């Protein structure tokens, strides 16, 4: 076989092999495990003060160079965007867990990709922990 033909075939065929998730699966990100993702994106804090926790999360986002786009105390969510040669969007929600704890959950989007890597979330919760003066506990 001619090498040029091989090359052409490879260039056309490899996207099929290595290609991303089909577009329709992207709508609900059906390729990801819901349980695992929750674990990566959530931490529990020993406090019941939702308002203070949301305010501290806003402060943490500002410390991380985000501009806060939205906040809703009743719903318990805030959203922000960081522009630094890329667009990083994050939503943080604060929900009660039992009578003595709050769950803080963050989900982020880097340009047009969901952030599923645990490390950025660890970094976010490390920053939040510092601002809260409370330990972020892993949620099972």
């Amino acid at each position, binding site marked *: 076989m001619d090498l040029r033909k091989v090359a052409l075939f*490879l260039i056309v065929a490899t*996207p099929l092999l290595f290609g991303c998730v089909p577009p329709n699966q992207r709508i609900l990100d059906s390729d990801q495990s819901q349980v695992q993702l929750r674990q990566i994106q959530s931490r529990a804090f020993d406090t019941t003060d939702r308002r203070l926790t949301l*305010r501290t999360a806003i402060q943490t986002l500002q410390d991380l160079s985000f501009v*806060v786009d939205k906040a809703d105390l009743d719903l318990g969510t805030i959203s922000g965007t960081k522009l630094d040669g890329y667009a990083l969007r994050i939503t943080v929600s604060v929900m009660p867990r039992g009578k003595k704890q709050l769950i803080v959950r963050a989900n982020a989007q880097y340009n047009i990709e969901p952030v599923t890597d645990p490390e950025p979330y660890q970094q976010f919760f490390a*920053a939040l922990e510092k601002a809260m003066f409370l330990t972020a506990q892993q949620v099972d």
Partner: protein
Amino acid sequence: MKLRPARDVFLALVLLGFSAALQGCAPTIPKDALLLQPDSLARRQLQTRRFDTSDELQLLQASAMVLQDIGFSIDESETKLGLIAGSKSRDATSASQVAGAILLGLLSGSNMPVDRVQHIKASVVTRSPAKGAMNVRVTFQRTVIDDRGQVARVESLEEPVLYQEFFDKLSKSVFLQANNI
């Protein structure tokens, strides 16, 4: 072309790797995107001013007026959490950049894109660090679009002058409001 299996297989593998790298999914998040940076405290100081008041709502109102003064529309607010977010769009044409593009076009015949529009966003956040005091922190960012409609750059704005001017206006606004002017 004569068939030389070892070389051809090697070349094919190189090509395979190369095109996979080209066609692969979008790049992933930078390792330090959500890492608290050592300079975050300096940035916080630059972007924050303290006011001797415990009236958060009044401070937020004064901030909303300043945002209006500098041409922003309010997109979102939640006074219970001390947040106002606004945005505006402005011309981003820079004479020196246009001149550069024309010069380069004359020399090389290529057509370099130039900045056309900037979409600017700001958020103002208030919080009480201690009794009788309120901190106001403002952050600005922008997206610049070029004359081809492409995003030229996205960035946070960190020029100290910008923040000084904003807080000068806010101090005035608080004063004007306190005196009902």
